[in-house]
């Protein structure tokens, strides 16, 4: 049939159809002379008759499966070798089906996740690909295994093992598992999550519905559907970079940073695991709101602290579960499926588990466990009965050190790295590159921009949060490094870019070297980065030698290098770096004496050299105290110069104060306590002025510490009245925070000051008054120690306080009580050393305590025991007294212990019946006293007390004893009868 005929046919048909059938023929004869045409029309008329009029009422009927299936066309179809049976659920990106494959004798069930049609958009496809890549890389008995991947009709899918099981919370409740059993199960979950983290995957949606327990009792983790890859390679392949905006998470289990849309890290999984464990162990949610509104829940999650598990079980409330049913929660109810009795459950949760859970649920990621591994380890420790690391939420106990001037906060450092890299991008890079290279540059530009974005939005947290042991952190930093290195290649000859690069390397080094979570930073990597900084900056100097800023930056680089070398123990390297910094800054500061940053860097260089020579608190140093003093003094001079330029600048004032204090420390270290006090006072004055002007909490905190230092110097010197005065000043300043509830460490500080004061008062002559103070202080600290028995700093303080009290009791002649106190101290210190063999300070203090015990035993006449205790003390003290540089407390202890040995032999001598024996004892005793005296000679300007506050007899006592022995030995020795 031809188209042009159609209209003719149509016309003819129209006319014919209106006619009664018998009239049609004749009509056609007339209207269609063309035979073919007529045939056509007739044929149609026939067909019309055949078709009948049923179609007039035609309504399309279809059987049900048409529509059922077309709303889900996959059911019944085959995807690969699997036939789809039913739909399990729909996710954001795809649907999940249950499918089977008949294999020989059995039917294998699988779950298939298929990308939703209609999402043909590239970015969705890519994200789906990501999921597949994630799943493919995970192979763990507790993670639903990936079996197969493919595409069907252009849609990607993956096949996973089909898991049938109970949600973990139901499983535990139905079987009434005890706390221990629940913890064991939880640890398996942790192992799976940790495994995922090691493969650079954060789950992000850990909740009971995603953790099934099979009939064999094995946990299986499901639905890494919104899991996030941390691998920058995968990440950089995604084009549409979105700041994490994942809705499909369950609010209850989401971490505060997820709720706020902030970058997610492995720490977020730690948080979710914390919520899970909280539920498993108590039955309650850690977030409690009266209203069930979402925004209230969100607020509670990001702002409120959860109640301690051991207390929350007493709460009576109701909740709706996942299916909308109302559940009553009561103490009896939650206990029944756990430990049985309410008291049993409470007892079980109190202490370790309380602390572990609270630590996992901290609002700030950096204060949680750094990794799932650490959480699991703490649980293991708890199950084994060992001390856990989780502590009550207290501010870090301050050692008596002053704040560093140049601390790099990790957040600041990371942001700085990133903004610098971004800065490289922002700098008109393209302007520097010839047009010919534009394409290459643009590709590079995009790469860097991706890296920047990736770093900013997702890796910022990851870099600082992942524990060092994870390859991931290294990978991330390595990638940043790779980019910088390749940029370095391309930027040769481009001075501006080189400068940017050097800054970026510096900041990268700061991040790499930063110690966090109790781990030491990656010093080797940081060193390498700093070396690059220095290398680049050196080239800039020779090429563009007049630029003072370049020189300044070079000096800064050497300083960073030097600081890192101290950390790694390379003191000679550190010194060389520091000296280089100094040699650059001296002429520079001379040439630009009006520029603050020049003076600042110069004084930093002096300070660094001084620190290396004389130490800075506890860090390694060369033991060259005079050198340290000289350089710190120079630093002070420069700081004073800077202050003259900017007399009102508080940081310039604080710099001067700090150097005065450092000089004071150097002098006290050398035994020049009076001079030291003078310098402390100068620093103090400045601090007082600063405190009066501003509310800076750091200054307020440092002020009483300065008074205490001064007090200590006086105490050791034997100037007790002055010591008391200064302690009292510290005491008064600390009184406000020290008596506040909720701040345990401030209370401990305060109590320590009170104890020092008590000690000084007693030494000054008022033993009763001193003892009263000391007892009060001990009460306070005993109370704190009872609340937090594993807190090392609190226990250290308590140990010292017992010794100080013991000493006062000894003076009063109350030997039994004194011995009891010394023994308490030894016991406390012994426990600390046992759990942390690296704690040399406490080991040394333990030796000192043992010496005190020995002294007392000797006074009570128990010579054997005394000897034993002295020997124990000597064994430890010898090591540290003879190290380089020597530990001063050790030296005192050693000297006292030797002299104690001498005294013991003198007592032996007194007991001897024969003069021959007596002489032997005196010779032995004199040997020991001489050893003691030799030790005393090593100590510069010894005081009446050692740095730890232990009483000491001093060298004059010892030399007197030597003289006594000599005198005794000079007496003629009568002929010895045979023994």
């Amino acid at each position, binding site marked *: 049939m031809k188209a042009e005929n159609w209209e003719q046919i149509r016309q003819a048909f129209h006319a014919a*159809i209106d006619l009664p059938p018998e009239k049609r023929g004749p009509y056609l004869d007339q209207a269609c002379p063309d035979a073919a045409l007529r045939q056509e029309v007739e044929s149609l008329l026939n067909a019309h008759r055949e*078709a009948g009029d049923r*179609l007039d009422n035609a309504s399309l009927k279809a*059987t049900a499966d048409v529509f059922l299936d077309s709303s889900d066309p996959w059911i019944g179809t085959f995807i690969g070798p699997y036939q789809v049976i039913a739909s399990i659920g729909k996710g954001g990106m795809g649907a999940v089906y249950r499918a089977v494959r008949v294999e020989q004798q059995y039917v294998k069930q699988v779950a298939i996740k298929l990308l939703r049609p209609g999402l043909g958009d590239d970015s969705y496809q890519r994200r789906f690909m990501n999921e597949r890549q994630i799943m493919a890389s995970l192979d763990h008995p507790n993670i639903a295994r990936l079996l197969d991947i493919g595409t069907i009709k252009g849609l990607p899918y993956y096949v996973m093992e089909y898991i049938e099981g109970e949600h973990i919370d139901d499983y535990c409740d139905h079987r009434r598992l005890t706390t221990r059993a629940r913890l064991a199960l939880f640890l398996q979950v942790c192992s799976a999550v940790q495994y995922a983290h090691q493969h650079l995957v954060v789950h992000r949606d850990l909740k009971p519905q995603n953790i099934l327990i099979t009939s064999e009792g094995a946990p299986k983790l499901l639905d890494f559907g919104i899991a996030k890859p941390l691998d920058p390679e995968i990440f950089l392949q995604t084009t549409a970079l979105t700041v994490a905006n994942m809705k499909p998470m369950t609010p209850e289990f989401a971490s505060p940073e997820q709720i706020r849309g902030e970058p997610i890290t492995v720490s977020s999984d730690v948080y979710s695991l914390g919520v899970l464990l909280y539920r498993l162990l108590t039955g309650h949610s850690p977030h409690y709101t009266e209203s069930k509104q979402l925004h209230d829940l969100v607020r509670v999650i990001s702002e409120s602290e959860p109640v301690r598990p051991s207390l929350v079980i007493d709460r009576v409330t109701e909740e709706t579960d996942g299916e909308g049913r109302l559940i009553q929660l009561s103490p009896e109810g939650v206990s029944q499926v756990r430990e049985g009795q309410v008291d049993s459950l409470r007892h079980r949760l109190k202490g370790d588990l309380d602390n572990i859970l609270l630590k996992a649920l901290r609002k700030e990621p950096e204060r949680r466990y750094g990794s799932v591994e650490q959480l699991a380890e703490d649980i293991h420790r708890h199950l084994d009965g060992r001390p856990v690391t989780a502590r009550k939420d207290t501010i870090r106990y301050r050692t008596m050190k002053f704040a560093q001037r140049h601390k790099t906060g990790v957040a600041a450092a990371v942001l700085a790295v990133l903004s610098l890299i971004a800065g490289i991008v922002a700098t008109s890079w393209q302007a520097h590159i010839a047009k010919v290279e534009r394409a290459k540059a643009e590709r590079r530009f995009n790469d860097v921009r991706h890296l920047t974005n990736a770093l900013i939005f997702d890796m910022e947290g990851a870099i600082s949060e992942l524990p060092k042991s994870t390859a991931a952190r290294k990978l991330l930093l390595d990638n940043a490094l790779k980019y910088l290195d390749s940029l370095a290649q391309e930027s040769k000859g481009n001075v501006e870019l080189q400068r940017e690069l050097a800054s970026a390397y510096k900041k990268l080094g700061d991040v790499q070297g930063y110690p966090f979570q109790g781990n030491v930073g990656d010093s080797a990597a940081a060193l390498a980065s700093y070396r690059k900084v220095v290398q680049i900056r050196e080239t800039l100097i020779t090429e563009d030698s007049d630029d003072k800023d370049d020189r300044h930056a070079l000096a800064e680089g050497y300083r960073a290098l030097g600081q890192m070398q101290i950390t790694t123990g390379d003191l000679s390297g550190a010194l060389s770096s520091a000296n280089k910094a100094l040699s650059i800054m001296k002429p520079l500061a001379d040439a630009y004496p009006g520029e603050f940053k020049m003076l600042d860097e110069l004084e930093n260089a002096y300070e660094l050299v001084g620190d290396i020579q004389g130490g800075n608190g506890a860090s390694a140093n060369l033991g060259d105290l005079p050198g340290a003093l000289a350089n710190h003094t120079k630093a002070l001079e420069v700081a004073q110069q800077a202050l003259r330029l900017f007399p009102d600048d508080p940081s310039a004032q604080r710099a001067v104060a700090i150097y005065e204090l450092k000089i004071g420390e150097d002098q006290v270290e050398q035994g020049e306590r009076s001079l030291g006090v003078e310098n402390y006072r100068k620093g103090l004055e400045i601090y007082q002025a600063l405190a009066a002007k501003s509310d800076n909490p750091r200054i307020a905190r440092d002020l009483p510490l300065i008074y205490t230092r001064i007090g200590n110097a006086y105490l050791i010197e034997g100037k007790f009245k002055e010591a008391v005065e200064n302690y009292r000043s510290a005491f008064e300043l600390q009184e406000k925070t020290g008596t506040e509830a909720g701040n345990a460490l401030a209370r401990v500080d305060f109590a320590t000051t009170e104890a020092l004061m008590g000690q000084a008062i007693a030494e000054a002559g008022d033993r009763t008054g001193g003892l009263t103070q000391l007892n009060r202080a001990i009460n306070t600290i005993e109370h704190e120690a009872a609340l937090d028995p594993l807190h090392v700093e609190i226990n250290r303080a308590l140990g010292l306080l017992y010794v100080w009290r013991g000493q006062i009791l000894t003076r009063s002649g109350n030997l039994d009580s004194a011995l009891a106190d010394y023994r308490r101290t030894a016991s406390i210190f012994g426990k600390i050393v046992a759990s942390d063999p690296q704690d040399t300070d406490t080991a040394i203090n333990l030796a000192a305590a043992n010496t005190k015990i020995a002294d007392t035993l000797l006074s009570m006449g128990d010579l054997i025991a005394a000897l034993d205790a002295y020997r124990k003390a000597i064994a430890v003290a010898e090591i540290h007294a003879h190290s380089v540089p020597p530990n001063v407390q050790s030296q005192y202890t050693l000297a006292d212990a030797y002299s104690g040995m001498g005294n013991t032999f003198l007592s032996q001598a007194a007991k001897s019946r024969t003069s021959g024996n007596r002489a032997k004892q005196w010779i032995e005793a004199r040997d020991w006293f001489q050893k003691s005296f030799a030790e005393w000679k090593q100590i510069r300007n010894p005081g009446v007390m050692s740095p730890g506050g232990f009483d000491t007899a001093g060298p004059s006592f010892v030399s007197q004893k030597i003289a006594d022995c000599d005198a005794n030995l000079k007496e003629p020795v009568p002929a010895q009868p045979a023994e």
Partner: protein
Amino acid sequence: MGAQGAMGVTRLLAQWAEGDRQAMEELLPLVYDELRRLARSYLQRENPGHTLQSTALVHEAYLRLVDQDVSWQSRAHFFGIAAQMMRRILVDHARAKHAEKRGDGACRVTLDEGLLSTESCDVNVLALDRALTRLAEFDRQQSQIVELRFFAGLSIEDTAEILKISPATVKRDWAMAKAWLHREMQA
């Protein structure tokens, strides 16, 4: 979908009526989804073996999606779309089903009782679809009439109104189309 959908569809229809071709793009999926959704809910109410009238579906979708005081133009557009949708749905499904089944040659091709039973013989729908496509090459109006009447179940009068032709013409064209299709599908 709900209220928001209704507004959206109405607006889009109006826009399309004014010549906005983009509106059509947006409209299609909305209508499509609604039809399928309705179908699903229908069938879940009855037991699965039961048959369903697609016309009822389309009318209900219309009621749900479009504001009632809309212009007849919009109404025409809606049904035009809905009809095409239904055709799509059925044909797609038939194709999918047909691809899995093997050897269906024993099917008799009939338009039997107005029942296009996709269960017994998928080829029907496909054959119809093919035939209809061919018809459209010759006579667009006739294929539209078939679509509206077959897939959207509109009456002669409604069809006439929508296509802006006389009911008599619709009747005649309908007759011819029926005949032609019948003949075409027999071949």
